[in-house]
């Protein structure tokens, strides 16, 4: 066990820090599109976008450890994302690198690295949730085209995406529901595609429903072989991270929560002096650190070349619970001001906590509900029988 960095790793961390010092001043307006565009360009020049991808497709060829260092340092400094095409970098790129034709690689990878446009992912369907095996959106081959009919739901940022990576059913197999699923890459402006944003309870919209009505997709936009879509997706799923960057975002929320407790009064004294409030915050801090340490242990496993199994469900469950509870608690300690939102004179921190308390499902839904994570842990790790 050695929790210090090697000299090489330290050198890389220093390089990252120096880059951040130079290019990301504390007071940089991270919401300014001009600044973000320039920032992305610089990152791209350093090959830190797609940092773990092979150099021959334009990636940085970074190690897992370097990648973790990069992400942690970035998160600590509240840097804008590593690339602007989040879905492309997380899901689409790795799948294309693993299964794409040479032509597909040349056509899509540079744009993903440049953040030229957004991708979205068409996996979930109504009435199936995360049960991809029960997929019903259908594609029928007609000559050199697939004709797609069906519906997707919980498609993140579909309304701002130029392309979608889409799972469709091309045949039925009674014995193995995962067979007969095929992966297609589809331009969102293809005739027959309709996007309907889903308004969330906080009043915004991040997800959408996507409808496919006789949508024609050329065969050359198929990713992998017909019927291989499940395998293609699994590859992308395996690219999930150890959760280290998420820990940084939780840590920032925790620090803000401490400041909130210090400036919020209860009975005339700072809430931060209340033993119950202190204990709650210390519990959050401890659980966040546990998540961080879990992540470091899983990262070590990866570094040692052991495959990561269902351990990510542990991080997801912890994260979901923390997001729900921290948002709720931050609202709770504000007393009567708790339910006020942005615009109310008495709302703390411009209503950010209220937004957090209504936005956790975005995190929770992302990787399956807490109940699903618990099933995965119980069945795949503890070996309990499936229901």
């Amino acid at each position: 066990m050695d929790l210090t960095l090697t000299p090489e790793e330290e050198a890389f961390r220093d390089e990252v820090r120096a880059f951040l010092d130079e290019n990301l001043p504390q007071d940089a307006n991270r919401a300014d599109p001009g600044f973000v565009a320039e920032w992305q360009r610089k990152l791209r020049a350093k090959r830190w976008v797609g940092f773990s991808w092979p150099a021959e497709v334009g990636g940085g060829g970074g190690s897992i450890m370097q990648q973790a260092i990069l992400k942690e340092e970035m998160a600590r400094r509240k840097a804008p994302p590593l690339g602007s095409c989040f879905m492309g970098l997380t899901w689409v790129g790795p799948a294309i690198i693993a299964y794409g034709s040479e032509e597909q690689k040349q056509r899509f990878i540079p744009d993903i690295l440049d953040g030229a446009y957004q991708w979205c992912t068409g996996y979930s369907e109504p009435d199936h949730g995360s049960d991809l095996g029960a997929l019903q959106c259908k594609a029928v081959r007609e000559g050199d085209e697939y004709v797609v009919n069906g519906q997707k739901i919980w498609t993140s940022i579909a309304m701002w995406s130029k392309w979608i990576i889409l799972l469709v059913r091309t045949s039925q197999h009674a014995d193995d529901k995962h067979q007969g699923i095929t992966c297609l890459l589809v331009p969102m402006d293809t005739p027959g595609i309709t996007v309907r944003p889903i308004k969330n309870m906080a009043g915004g919209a991040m997800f959408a429903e996507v409808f496919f009505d006789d949508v024609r997709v050329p065969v050359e936009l198929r990713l992998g072989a017909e019927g291989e879509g499940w395998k293609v997706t699994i590859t992308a799923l395996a690219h999930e991270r150890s959760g280290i960057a998420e820990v940084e975002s939780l840590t920032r929320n925790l620090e803000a929560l401490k400041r909130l407790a210090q400036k919020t009064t209860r009975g005339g004294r700072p809430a931060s002096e209340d033993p119950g409030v202190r204990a709650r915050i210390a519990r959050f801090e401890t659980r966040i650190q546990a998540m961080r340490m879990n992540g470091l242990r899983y990262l070590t496993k990866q570094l040692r070349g052991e495959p990561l199994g269902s351990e990510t469900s542990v991080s997801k469950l912890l994260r979901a619970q923390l997001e729900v509870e921290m948002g709720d608690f931050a609202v709770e300690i504000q007393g009567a001001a708790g339910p006020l939102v942005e615009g109310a004179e008495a709302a703390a921190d411009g209503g950010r906590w209220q937004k957090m308390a209504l936005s956790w499902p975005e995190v929770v839904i992302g990787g399956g509900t807490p109940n699903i994570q618990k099933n995965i842990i119980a069945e795949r790790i503890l070996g309990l029988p499936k229901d």
Partner: protein
Amino acid sequence: MDFGFTEEQELLRSEVRKYLDAKCPLEQVRAISEAEGGAGFSPELWKEIAELGWLGLCVPEVHGGAGLGQVDLVVLLEETGRSLFPSPLLATSLAVAALREAGSEEQQARWLPSLADGTAIGSPALQEDADPPTPERVSLVGTPDGDGFVLRGEKRFVPDAGAATLFVVPFRAGSELALAVVERDAAGVSLEAWPGMDLTKRLGRLVLDGVRVGPDAVLAERGDAVFERIVDRATAGLTAEIVGAADGAVVLTAEYAKDRIQFGSPIGRYQGVKHPLAEMYVDVESSKSLLYYAAWALDESPAEAPRYVSMAKAYASEAFARIGIDAVQLHGAVGYTWEFDAHLYLKRSKWARPMYGDSDFHYERVAALGGL
């Protein structure tokens, strides 16, 4: 001993529920509360419920009401809570309670009839900061002015500040705590409505910029004890709405769990859904029992009332906060959409939890009253 409702109370409940189901189902709740620039209620429905006698339920018959008690009010408010009915009914009924606790016969005769017939909308303006309303936290000073007082300062977290026309305002009159009735159109009064996450419940600020209250507007009963009795009645009324809403959330979620098919069977088949719902049910049952006892005690056994009011509020609002979150979570992804109704209960639970003291405050009161 009879710890159940009378036939008349059961009839009241079923009539209120029937009316709200017909006139203000959740689509209508949304339409009223989401209306741009609206005050969060429907003047038409307000008129109708005044005619149905809801507003005058606890107003003595001589002043144009039905002269009923706290238990009857609980029946009414449980149903408005269940329906998430957006209106200043709770606030008005609490203003009525304050006038009955502290007003002279003349003062009751002056204001109760208009509160009963809906021409006035009442609101208790009990807080100055985000802490629970206790006598010690009243610091607004009434400067003696002839036979009356001049009030300068502000009251915050005032329910339905945007809609109410008549406020009950505690202030310091020398060494004593007193209560004044302040009307919206009095000189020096201004109001600010605050945006909140629960669109069906509004809060705001009442600014008193040198408002003069004559001796006839200063309520007859004074002191910490009457203030606490008013807060206890307000807390019980609020708790009734909480209990009704929590029950509504459980019913909504149980129905969804029966209908929603996943992996080939209704999600309600799984213990991961069943057990949380069973716990929600137990919490609602227990909240009801504590609430009914507290309501009975307020009218019939006042010495016990503070302890039971605190138990009911502490237990119910804490349970409702969990139920609000669980209701959304048990719906899965759709629970988080604006379209599904689960979040309406979640938001209500967030609004209700701190009002008139959160569970920390009330459990501490239970401990102290229990001899600790």
